[in-house]
């Protein structure tokens, strides 16, 4: 069904429209986003996002810090899944220096990244529910996210900003009772996902609120540079874990869920299935991990002061939100000459005005939550 979307040209006198300033101080804007919306009653005629409320100059900071000192800064990109950011940056530096990371360290990275992916999707789905008025699934999921954070804390003491791994490997082996903790968490996590599924997926109100809302075609999504769950929801089967495997992703068996219409519902369901696939990946990765002897090396031979050769590198991984890439240019000194980050949110958020145009105010909020815009990596 083709719905004609009103544009600003439809009004003889655009002064009749009401400008609503949604954010940055608004319950659904997470304190860091701002959308200037022109509305006709409840219908959005144009929406103009303004970014930069969380700009901290992360890329510039990188030029003044040594390679190792930059790892904690990457925590603050997508703070819902800091581990993925850490690993992505470390892999870029390793690629630049030509370091071969020990296999055991790669498995540990993989396990932790998938845990971070689950935690990230939990935040996204929970907030999406809250923004659509369904409060309860948020708590069911967040209790389990707390348990995942307990595992992170057990590993290296940090919960949110993990500063996981080092250039050339990881700093420590998994705790002895890691598998035990995972087995204890697993049934509760599955139950929480299941309960969320029961409360939302086939709920008539939820379906009415999400199906067909802010739908996007695969061609548009690709031309806007979508990656991650938002792209897969549009029906494009693109996942760096399968297409350009790193760590041990080519040795584990998992599916890539794809949607059809690229609407809020598809984005939600893609994330739900991805959580289950991540559980599958972790289970298989633990099997691979157990094949290594306890004293297998965790760090490659890395010089004390990291001085990559002159050159530049781009390396990307499939972060929970999409393709997270680091471009690093080295001038041979102990500090990067330039770091450029490719955050998945930034590309997705560019299409936001086109996505919400002609929808209603309530849909704008739903769309924003389903895209999982994290200001930390959007503004950097």
């Amino acid at each position, binding site marked *: 069904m083709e719905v004609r979307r009103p544009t600003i040209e439809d009004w003889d006198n655009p002064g009749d429209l*009401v400008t*609503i*300033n949604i954010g940055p101080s*608004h*319950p*659904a804007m997470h304190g860091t986003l701002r959308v200037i919306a022109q509305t006709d*009653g*409840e219908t959005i005629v144009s929406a103009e996002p303004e970014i930069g409320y969380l700009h901290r100059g992360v890329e510039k900071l990188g030029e003044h810090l040594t390679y190792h000192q930059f790892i904690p800064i990457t925590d603050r990109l997508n703070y819902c899944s800091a581990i993925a950011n850490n690993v992505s940056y470390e892999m870029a530096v390793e690629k630049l220096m030509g370091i071969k990371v020990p296999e055991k360290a790669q498995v540990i990275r993989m396990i932790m990244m998938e845990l971070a992916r689950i935690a990230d999707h939990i935040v996204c789905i929970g907030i999406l*529910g*809250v*923004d*659509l*008025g*369904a*409060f*309860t699934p*948020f*708590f*069911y999921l967040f*209790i389990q996210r707390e348990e995942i954070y307990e595992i992170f804390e057990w590993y290296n003491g940090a919960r949110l900003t993990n500063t996981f791994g080092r250039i050339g490997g990881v700093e420590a082996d998994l705790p002895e009772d890691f598998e035990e903790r995972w087995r204890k968490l697993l049934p509760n996590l599955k139950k929480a996902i299941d309960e969320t599924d029961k*409360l*939302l997926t086939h*709920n008539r*109100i*939820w379906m*009415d*609120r999400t199906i067909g809302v802010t739908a996007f075609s695969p061609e548009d999504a690709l031309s806007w540079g979508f990656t991650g769950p938002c792209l897969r929801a549009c029906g494009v089967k693109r996942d760096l874990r399968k297409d350009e495997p790193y760590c041990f992703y080519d040795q584990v068996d998992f599916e890539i869920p794809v949607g059809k219409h690229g609407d809020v519902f598809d984005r939600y369901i893609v994330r739900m299935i991805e959580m289950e696939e991540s559980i599958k990946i972790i289970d298989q990765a633990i099997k691979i991990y157990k094949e290594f002897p306890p004293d297998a090396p965790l760090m490659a031979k890395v010089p004390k002061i990291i001085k990559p050769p002159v050159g530049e590198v781009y390396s990307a991984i499939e972060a929970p939100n999409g393709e997270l890439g680091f471009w690093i240019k080295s001038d041979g000194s102990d500090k990067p000459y330039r770091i450029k980050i490719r955050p998945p949110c930034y590309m997705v958020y560019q299409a936001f005005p086109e996505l919400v145009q002609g929808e*209603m*105010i*309530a*849909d704008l*909020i739903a769309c924003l939550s389903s895209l999982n815009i994290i200001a930390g990596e959007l503004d950097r």
Partner: protein
Amino acid sequence: MNWVIAIIKVVFIWTWCLLWATVMTWAERRGSAMIQDRLGPNRAGPFGLFQPIADGIKLFTKEEFRPKTARKILFNLGPILFAIPAFSAYAVIPFGDKIVIGGKEILLQVADVNIGFLYVLAIGALAVYGIVVGGWGSNNKYSILGGLRSTAQLISYEVPWGLALLAAVFVYGTFDLRQIALEQTGTFLGFLPNWGVFKQPLGFLIFTVAAYAEANRVPFDLPEAESEIVAGYHTEYGGMRLGLYLFGEYVNLYTLSALCVTLYFGAWNLPYIDMSKFLGPISYGIASFVVFWLKVMVFLLSFIWVRWTVPRFRYDQVMRLGWKTLIPLALFNLLITALFIQLTV
């Protein structure tokens, strides 16, 4: 003497509604916590029961802030216009059968008027003014949006609500709420309690859905949808002005539940048992009061249960449900009821 009794009844039911509205704020928080695997407020008093008192003190002692751009008179008027209908609607709804003290028969109802029904409808319709005036007077875009939404919603759902109630009037043949309650004794079809819900199942369904919309409760809480329009019509309110809106909402819930019990769930009548046969005049009065209150509590708790289970509708979906589903259904229900009565009586 009569006016003394009348004053006692007014004061009693006023405090009673206020008390249970207060307890409802506690029940809402503890109930939602129970649903969401949390504990909820449990520090103040046993089970956190004094939490509403603490909240009340906080609201009373807070600064009565009014934005400079707000329209002063309308801004002050809004919460009052909202709270007064909420409190006065209960006047005609019975809260028990009757109590006999010293040979004097006292009806457990503030005013036994023969058009009680229309009174509830009329007063209930007034509540929307409080929201609209408050939203408009705040002079804030979110408030105006909330006020607009609530105008459209409350007026749309008044229609199916009224039509569902009209079908009930057809069944009972009276506008008098006490008379309606008295009709619901004995059994229906030989085995069911003679309650309105069995004679008007569709009407009850429409009434319930419309009641949720009238009370601005999830899934119809669009006028105050937190994630969309901040707090809707009461965005700019604080202190006791906000308190009046919040209290008014819970008093509204109590009134709606009481109306529902009176019309569809046999008021103070127990199924299959006639309490007046074996209870003394005073104990019967108390028993009828308690039974009525317990039934109301079930409905109040169902309001909480639904609120924390389902998501919120979108504005156009609310309108579609109201005009395209509920009103045709209510008209159909009215037609069937009328035909049935015409053919059988």
